[in-house]
Structures are given as structure tokens and as C-alpha cells.
């Protein structure tokens, strides 16, 4: 029988992994919706309105999934980690409170106007509501990343009787890893949505949906993807340098470096780290690579795992395999994104027969097909990145301040096990339903006629019919 600590950790990890999937989409999709709406207003081209109408549904669905899993999250601290709040509640509390007050209410109220107010409020107010929802999700991200980053690189507090007391709020908010983590997360969200848009549009295109809006969506997704991915790789590198300074044990685990302390550390492309023997098996590596990337010189020393073993043999570094591999999954996905987005743009750049550039027809079939599974690549990279970050923090919950085992609730293990199973079943079912509905919406959109007029009241039967179908009044088939 597993103990309550392990079960609580699995339950927490399952909940937050499920939660993060949806904010990752809504954070950036909010801004994309604003982009579609403004493009429509400036160009008057209805294809942008069609894009808005398609993606606003997915936004609403993702938002609901994000909200309900977020509410679950806010209870997790109390039900499973009371020790966390007892020790660092004075810091975590105000940050969470600010998130609720400045972000959650903003999005929750204006999403109503954004989704259902289109024909009820003046256009400027609707645009403003769209902006405020996007702004609210971004504020959410800011506050939660502040808290999370403080757990990684805490400062601005003093410990009195084992309880953290804030001494300097600016130092707490602008803790050393916060800017890197925030930007990296926002870019991750932007990339996730870029590839989602390109991927779903490519799927529609393959199904024979050749409407102008579909082509434009492929272009928009690819262009934003291509713009953001180099930034992300660059930010990731800076993030790594920051981590090397503040959490060297994490970097040692990411690099799979057991014992090299005198520079010339290779960059490991593949290996099976063996945690008992404390060495790598089947290693394939680039000589001096890690030293060059993290130290900008072939002889720069890199943190090694052996430095984090206490005299009495207690291991003070995180589990190596999980960190090592999830880091590689993230970076690998990042390079796949780079290749696919720039590769596709290179093909699109070639002129079509009529002399125009960016004709989707010019995209080779395999690339078009590759875009479809890549629709979910952002999810993969984001989860892998968070696993690197969070598991890399172990055995600490708050680096150097609080270890994970002293924060757990003493709820009986069988009880935690039963709720854990309950959550897993529900999450699996909902994830299945979510993905099926997105596919269904994409397939269904094929039958929509291109928009010819905007207002639903004067727009005649077609728009009316779409609206009715969306309410489920008329069966879709």
C-alpha cells in the first residue's frame, strides 16, 4: 500500500497537469481571438469573422475546463498540503488572493459579455470585453508564476519559528527566476495555440474544406509559430542559465552530469541514467557541448550530481531519470516545431503558378499531414517542461525552506487513493470528450457556407441555421 505522501503527490500532479492543459490554450487563444476580431474590423474580410466564430467555441470549452479544474486546484492546497500553507502561507496567501481579485473575477465576468454579448452590447464594449478576458488570463499567469517561481527561488522573507514572514514584497514578486519562467510560459502558450490553429486548419483542409478562412488560419498559425519558436529556444537557454545559478542540482539532473566538475562536459543526446550505479548507460554525446551551452566556453565547469550527496549519503538532488527525460522531450518538441514551421514557410514562400506567394497548395502533402499531430505538440512540450521544473525542485517544496514530506495532510491513504482514482477516471473521460468535440467541430465546419453577411438578424437563413445548430436545437447531421 502506498502512503498518503506519494498518493497526495500523484493526485496533485494529476490535477495540475490536467489544469495546465486548458490555461495553456486560453491564455494565448484569448489574444488570438482579439487578433481575429481586429483583423475583421480593419479589413472587413469575413474570413476573419469565420475564424473568430470557430475558435470562440473552442475557447469557451477550454475556458470551462480550465475553470472547473482550477477550482479543484484551489481546494488541493487545503485538502492535501496543509503544511504548505502553515509554513509559507504568509507568502503564498497574498499572491493567490491577488490572483483571485485581479484576474479571476475579471475573466469570469467579462467572458459572459464576450461570449454572449455580441449582439447585445456596442461593438467597442465587446472588443473591450475580449481584451479584458485575454488580459485577465495573462494576469492569472503572472500571479501563479510569481508564486511558483518564489517556490523555486525564494527571497524577501525571514523564518520565525519555522514560519515564513514576508519582509520585502517587491523582492518576493520579482524573485530571480520569475521573469524567465513567466516569459517562457507565455511563449509556450503562444506556441501551443499557433500549432493548434495550424493543425486543426490543416485537418479541415485535408478533409476538403478549402474555404479562404481555413487557408488563412494555416498561415496565421504557421507564421506565429515560426516567429515564436526561436524566441522560445532563446528564452529557454536563458532560463537554463538562470537555473544553473540558483538551482544547480536541477541543471545537473537535466544534463545527466554525474561527476564532471572540471569543465569539458559533453552534451548528452541520449543516455539511460542509472540512479543506483550513479552513471549513464548507452550515452551518445557531443563533446564539450554542455560546457559551451551553459558556460559559453569548452572548459566551463557544469554542476554535477555527485556534488549534491551529503556526507552521510543522503541524496539532495532530484530524481535524475524523470528530469533528464522530460527535459529532452521538451527540447525535442521545440526543435520539431522549429523545423516544421520554418520548413513549411520556406515552401510557402515559393511563388505559385499565378505568381502569388503563400498559396497553401504549395505545401507538400507530408508537411500538411505533419501539421495535424503537431496540433497537440504544445501540450506535450508544456507538460514535459513543467515536469522538468517541478520534479527538478525535489526534494524541496520551497527550495531550501520546506521539504515536500513535511507539508502533507494526514488524511488516511485509502481515502486519498479513492479520490485519486475518481479524479483520474473523470479527467480521462473529459479529455477524451474534449478532443472528440474539437474534432467534431472541425469536421462539422466543413459544411458551413462561407459567410457573406455579418449580422445574424439580416444575414438570412444560413447564419440563423448555424446559430440554431450551435444551440443544439437542430441536429447537425
Amino acid at each position: 500500500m502506498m502512503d498518503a505522501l506519494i498518493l497526495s503527490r500523484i493526485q496533485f500532479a494529476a490535477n495540475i497537469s490536467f489544469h495546465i492543459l486548458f490555461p495553456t490554450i486560453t491564455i494565448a487563444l484569448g489574444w488570438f481571438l482579439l487578433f481575429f476580431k481586429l483583423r475583421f474590423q480593419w479589413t472587413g474580410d469575413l474570413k476573419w469573422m469565420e475564424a473568430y466564430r470557430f475558435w470562440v467555441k473552442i475557447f469557451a470549452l477550454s475556458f470551462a475546463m480550465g475553470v472547473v479544474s482550477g477550482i479543484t486546484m484551489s481546494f488541493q492546497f487545503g485538502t492535501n498540503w496543509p503544511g504548505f500553507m502553515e509554513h509559507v502561507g504568509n507568502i503564498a496567501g497574498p499572491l493567490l488572493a491577488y490572483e483571485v481579485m485581479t484576474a479571476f473575477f475579471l475573466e469570469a465576468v467579462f467572458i459572459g459579455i464576450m461570449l454572449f454579448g455580441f449582439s447585445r452590447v456596442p461593438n467597442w464594449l465587446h472588443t473591450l470585453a475580449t481584451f479584458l478576458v485575454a488580459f485577465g488570463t495573462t494576469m492569472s499567469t503572472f500571479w501563479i508564476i510569481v508564486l511558483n517561481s518564489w517556490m523555486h527561488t525564494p527571497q524577501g522573507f525571514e523564518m520565525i519559528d519555522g514560519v515564513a514572514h514576508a519582509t520585502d514584497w517587491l523582492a518576493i514578486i520579482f524573485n530571480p527566476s520569475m521573469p524567465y519562467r513567466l516569459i517562457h510560459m507565455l511563449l509556450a502558450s503562444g506556441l501551443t495555440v499557433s500549432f493548434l490553429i495550424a493543425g486543426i486548419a490543416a485537418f479541415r483542409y485535408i478533409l476538403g474544406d478549402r474555404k479562404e478562412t481555413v487557408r488563412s488560419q494555416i498561415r496565421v498559425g504557421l507564421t506565429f509559430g515560426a516567429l515564436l519558436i526561436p524566441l522560445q529556444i532563446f528564452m529557454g537557454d536563458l532560463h537554463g542559465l538562470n537555473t544553473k545559478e540558483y538551482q544547480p542540482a536541477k541543471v545537473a539532473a537535466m544534463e545527466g552530469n554525474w561527476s564532471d566538475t572540471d569543465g569539458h562536459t559533453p552534451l548528452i543526446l541520449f543516455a539511460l541514467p542509472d540512479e543506483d550505479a550513479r552513471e549513464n548507460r548507452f550515452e551518445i554525446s557531443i563533446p564539450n557541448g554542455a560546457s559551451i551551452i551553459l558556460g559559453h566556453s569548452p572548459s566551463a565547469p557544469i554542476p554535477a550530481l555527485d556534488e549534491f550527496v551529503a556526507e552521510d549519503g543522503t541524496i539532495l538532488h532530484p530524481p535524475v531519470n524523470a528530469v533528464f527525460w522530460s527535459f529532452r522531450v521538451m527540447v525535442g518538441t521545440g526543435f520539431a516545431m522549429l523545423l516544421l514551421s520554418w520548413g513549411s514557410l520556406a515552401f510557402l514562400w515559393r511563388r505559385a503558378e499565378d505568381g502569388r506567394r503563400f498559396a497553401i497548395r504549395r505545401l507538400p502533402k507530408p508537411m500538411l499531414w505533419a501539421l495535424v499531430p503537431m496540433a497537440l505538440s504544445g501540450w506535450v512540450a508544456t507538460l514535459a517542461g513543467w515536469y522538468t521544473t517541478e520534479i527538478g525542485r525535489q526534494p524541496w517544496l520551497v527550495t531550501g525552506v520546506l521539504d515536500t514530506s513535511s507539508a502533507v495532510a494526514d488524511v488516511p491513504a485509502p481515502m486519498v487513493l479513492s479520490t485519486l482514482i475518481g479524479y483520474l477516471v473523470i479527467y480521462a473521460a473529459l479529455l477524451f470528450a474534449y478532443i472528440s468535440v474539437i474534432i467534431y467541430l472541425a469536421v462539422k465546419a466543413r459544411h458551413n457556407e462561407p459567410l457573406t453577411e455579418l449580422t445574424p438578424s439580416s444575414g438570412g437563413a444560413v447564419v440563423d441555421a448555424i446559430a440554431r445548430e450551435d444551440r443544439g436545437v437542430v441536429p447537425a447531421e
Partner: protein
Amino acid sequence: MELLGYAPEIWLPFTFAALMGGSILLYVILDGYDLGVGMLTPFARTEEERDMMVASIGPFWDANETWLVLAVGLLLVAFPVAHGLILSTLYLPVFVMLVGLILRGVSFEFRVKARAKYKGLWNNLFFVGSLMTSLAQGFMLGMYVMGLEMTVLTVLFATICALGLSMGYAFIGATWLIAKSETSLQRDAIHWARRSILGAVVGIGLISVATPLVSERLWDKWLSFPAMAYLAPLPILSLLLLAGLWQSLSGPTYSVTTRAWRPFVGALGLFVLAFIGLAYSFFPYVVPERMTIFEAASAPESLIIILFGAMIVVPTILGYTALAYWVFRGKTKTLTYY
């Protein structure tokens, strides 16, 4: 920082208890009506009618639930020790509530976006989720009133509270529908309100009778002499409100429909009165009979910084919430994205 001569160790916990109480009250009223509407959906006559019911709460439910997040957040930040104690004791009912909230929250979206043949499934989940949430909340309320002790008697009491609160939610939900709907749906809502008001009465009555019996402290608090005189308005006002509600609901339909907001306002009044009674009973305890708000409060410097933000932000939140209710004022129309 003294306030009116009180040290911050006194007035800060008090202020936060008030803020938390305020958001619990707002939550119970606001999510109360939309959970109530959720529980009434199976009684809709037609699919159009059900769509209308859901449409009447569509723009509001997310913001309504955010008051729960704020309430739990305030409990967490202001009284962290109590938060841990309460939530780990109520571990299972909290789980049931969360599952309920998850199911109903996503069903809102899935029921209109999934393939039409699955709409019935999501309708059912919407109902089940609303019911689970309400029952779990009522159960937790009952356990809390009983001082979080687990015995056969307290569990029985909590179970009755679960049914009572659910009926209360169904009642305020029905009055919301009376205000927001027209024609046949409105007539049905009047009918539902007449039914569910009885359940609500039994629930409130039972808690009122049981409370003084739980402990000597509560007995003295309610039934000693000067207190009884101050408190008399609570039961009297409640009875007057009930009588008024009953009369307006049992009158001819047209008299209800011309003053369609009245039943909702009456229901709201009942909730407020019941809440004041509970707040009076528990103060100054945050965990009944075990821990006062002053013992459980976190460090003053953290509370000050939240309070500072709250003074600016909460009025703003109330402001734009009012804007949303104004935008969607009047009788409900079908929901469309464009």
C-alpha cells in the same frame, strides 16, 4: 496600526472574517440560484425550455463560482490552520462537491457543442453535477454546525441539511426563473417555487431548532435573556417573509408575473436572514468550539497587504458584475455567440 482603539491582532481577523462571510453569502445566493436552475432542468417540458433555463444562467455561472474561490482563498490566507483542519476533515464531501462542479461546468459547454445525439447525456450530467454540488454543500454545512464531529447523529443531521439546502437552492433557482422567463416556462417556475419552498422551510427550521441544542454555549447565546430580545427580529422577519412569499406565489399567476422579481428578492432575504443567524452562532469561532478567528489568523503584515488590495479591487469587481447583470437584464433570450 490601531483601528478605533483595537490592535491589528483583533481588528484584522475580524475584518477578514467579515470579508469571508460576505463572499460565502454572495456565493450561496448567486451560485445557489444557478445550481437550483441546474437541479430543475429535468422538469423542463421541452428541449427549448431547457435551453432557455440554461441560457438564463449562461452568462453568470462562472463569475458566481468565483465567489467560492474567493471564500476558500480568504479562509486559506487569513486562517490557514483552520483551512487545513476544515478541509482535511471534510475531505470526502469536498471531493463530491468538486466532482459536481466539474461535471456541471463542462456540461454547460458540451451539451451544445457535442454531437446532438449526446446532448441528453450532457443534460443528465448537468443535472447530476448540480445535485451533487448542492448536496455536498448542505452536508458540509450540517457537519460544520455540528462542530465537525463524526457520529451517527451528526451524519444524520448533515444528511437532512443536504436535502434542505438543495431544496433551498431549487427554490431560489425557481424564483430566478420566474423573474427571467416568460409564458409556459414562467408558469412552470411558479409551480416549482411552490413545491420547493416547503423543503427550504423545513431545512431552515431544522437548523434553527438544532443549533441551540449543539452546545451549551449556543444555548446561552440564543436563549438567554437580553440576547433573545435582540435576536427576535430574525425569526419574526423570516416568518413574515415566508408568509409574503407564500401569498405571492399562491395567488393567481398574473399577479406573480407582473411583479416577477418579488419572489427572487424574497428568497434572497430569507438566505440573508438565515446567514445572519449562522454567523451570530459561530462568531468568534472559525472551527466551531475549537478555534477562534483570533487564534487561527495569519501574520498581520500579510493580511494588511491583502486588505489594501481588496479595498481597491472588490468595489471594482462589484462594479463590473453590476455591468454584466445590466447587459443581460430583462427576459432571457437564447444564447448565441454572435
